[in-house]
């Protein structure tokens, strides 16, 4: 038998004499439960928002696939709504050309900025450059559009001997716009590297440049790819600034200074007046944009998993 040890005078066991722990009060319990549910509601609203948009866009855009056909819609070479021709290939190519060009210009600029900020700049210089880069992210895109329209376009018009509306102007404007996204994420990736590896590299007799190019950038590679993909998402989705400088001619890319159009800018251009199948086709384009950005998010997810595994 395991009789508890009892105090001689009171006859109480140790367990009985010890002060009792407080019980959770009813109000605490309710508050906790309410808060938990509040956060759940917030999360649900966000998810429901995305789902609703997707359902709405899908519902309005679906007929374009069933009535015009996937092939004719996606691979059709002509976008002539007045003649009931709804081929989005030139627009899709336009989006691609604009995005890839912007990335090609913007990535080196952004990675260079990030390397400068995290590895080279003194505290004082960083204190100036960093907020400036972050400020770039906060500038409304219509301002970038104005800048492109009023400053860049005339210069490019002179250089290319055209009107200056077209991919080149859009590339430069977009490249500047995606710098903050890519630069901040790349800087984070560089800063999260194990701290000792810089010293190790210098102690091996490496120069700053060798340390950056042979140790730091390769080590931060996954984070940088991640940054570029998020920048890509930003570039594909950007509408206003592109619309103002790209020329908005729904034709295939045929020159640096020749007007083209993109999926997003065409939607904005046509939406105010489009009706019937034309309107449906615009929703169809939205579905495509939706799928592309879902794909990008998927890739980013995948990369982040890789990074965690490392």
């Amino acid at each position, binding site marked *: 038998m395991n009789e508890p040890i009892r105090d001689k005078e009171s006859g109480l066991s140790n367990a009985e004499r010890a002060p009792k722990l407080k019980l959770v009060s009813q109000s605490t319990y309710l508050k906790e439960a309410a808060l938990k549910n509040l956060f759940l509601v917030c999360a649900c609203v966000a998810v429901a928002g995305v789902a609703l948009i997707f359902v709405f866009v899908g519902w309005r855009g679906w007929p374009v696939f069933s009535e015009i056909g996937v092939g004719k819609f996606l691979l059709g070479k002509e976008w002539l709504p007045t003649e009931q021709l709804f081929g989005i290939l030139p627009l899709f190519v336009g989006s691609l050309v604009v995005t890839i060009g912007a990335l090609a210009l913007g990535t080196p600029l952004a990675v260079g900025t990030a390397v400068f900020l995290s590895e080279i700049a003194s505290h004082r210089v960083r204190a100036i450059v960093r907020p400036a880069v972050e400020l770039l992210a906060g500038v409304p895109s219509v301002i970038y559009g104005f800048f492109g329209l009023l400053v860049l376009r005339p210069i490019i018009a002179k250089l290319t001997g055209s009107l200056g509306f077209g991919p080149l102007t859009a590339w430069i404007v977009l490249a500047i716009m995606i710098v903050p996204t890519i630069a901040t994420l790349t800087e984070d990736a560089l800063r999260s590297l194990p701290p000792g590896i810089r*010293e*190790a590299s210098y*102690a*091996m007799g490496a120069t700053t440049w*060798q340390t950056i190019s042979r140790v730091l950038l390769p*080590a931060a590679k996954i984070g940088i790819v991640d940054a570029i993909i998020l920048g890509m998402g930003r570039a594909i989705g950007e509408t206003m600034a592109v619309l103002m400088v790209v020329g908005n001619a729904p034709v295939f890319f045929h020159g640096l200074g020749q007007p083209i159009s993109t999926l997003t800018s065409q939607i904005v251009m046509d939406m105010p007046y489009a009706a019937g199948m034309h309107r449906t086709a615009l929703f169809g384009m939205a579905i495509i944009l939706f799928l592309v950005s879902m794909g990008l998010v998927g890739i980013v997810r995948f990369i982040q998993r890789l990074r965690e595994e490392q």
Partner: protein
Amino acid sequence: MTDTLSQSTSQAAPDVVAEEATVKIRVRDLDFYYDDFNALTGITCDIKAQAVTAFIGPSGCGKSTFLRCFNRMNDLIPGTRVVGTVLLDGQDIYGPDVDPVDLRRRVGMIFQQPNPFPMSIYDNVAYGPRLHGVKKKSDLDDIVKTSLKRANLWKEVKDILDRGGLTLSGGQQQRLCIARVLAVQPDVLLMDEPCSAIDPTSVQKIEDLMAELKSTVTIIIVTHNMQQAARVSDDTAFFLQEVMGEPAHLVEFGRTAEIFTSPKDKRTEDYITGRFG
């Protein structure tokens, strides 16, 4: 550079030559400053070639600072300043035309926290040779193998050379870092508390390694472990900062056996017997 060195030694008197041969690093009246803070003052000592020298002293007395003077790692910290001379094989390493990058190839360093690069074991060891222009795969293979063998790590990693260096255990990582340094064939190896972040078995391995390496490399080790200093070193230097905010200095420097059995200075004795620090 080697030419001028051999010339200058051959011109010197015979007994000086004999002495020169055993002294690897000659420090004269060294003062060190972090901005306005005078961290070390009046340090004069001779570090013997092919021996292990231990730096001991309480935390914050400038052991690491002094160690980092030998490969000019302090140059990387803005606002630092060295006064006095440090001669490596008779050449002033703070001379006006000395390239710190070349100096660091000859004076390698091991840190307290193992710091392999996030790349394969092979690439870690090949890093230095590649920096200095070795390109041929077969040459690199040889260097990687020899260096890992010298660091007593070859047996454990010979089948996993393409695995990430960071997947190794802490002690293995530290030996990988040693292999990485050995790959550029340094004359001097600086070790700043190389054993304080790893397990006892690995400590044993690294101590054995130091005994093997010292026939070819001059080793300087900073350690807080008195037994370790007594076990591995030939000479010991005891540093002390007596007043907070005042510069630290070299209290006693001599044969390890003497420092630990019959220290000349009362403060050294107090420190070694654990009465302060």
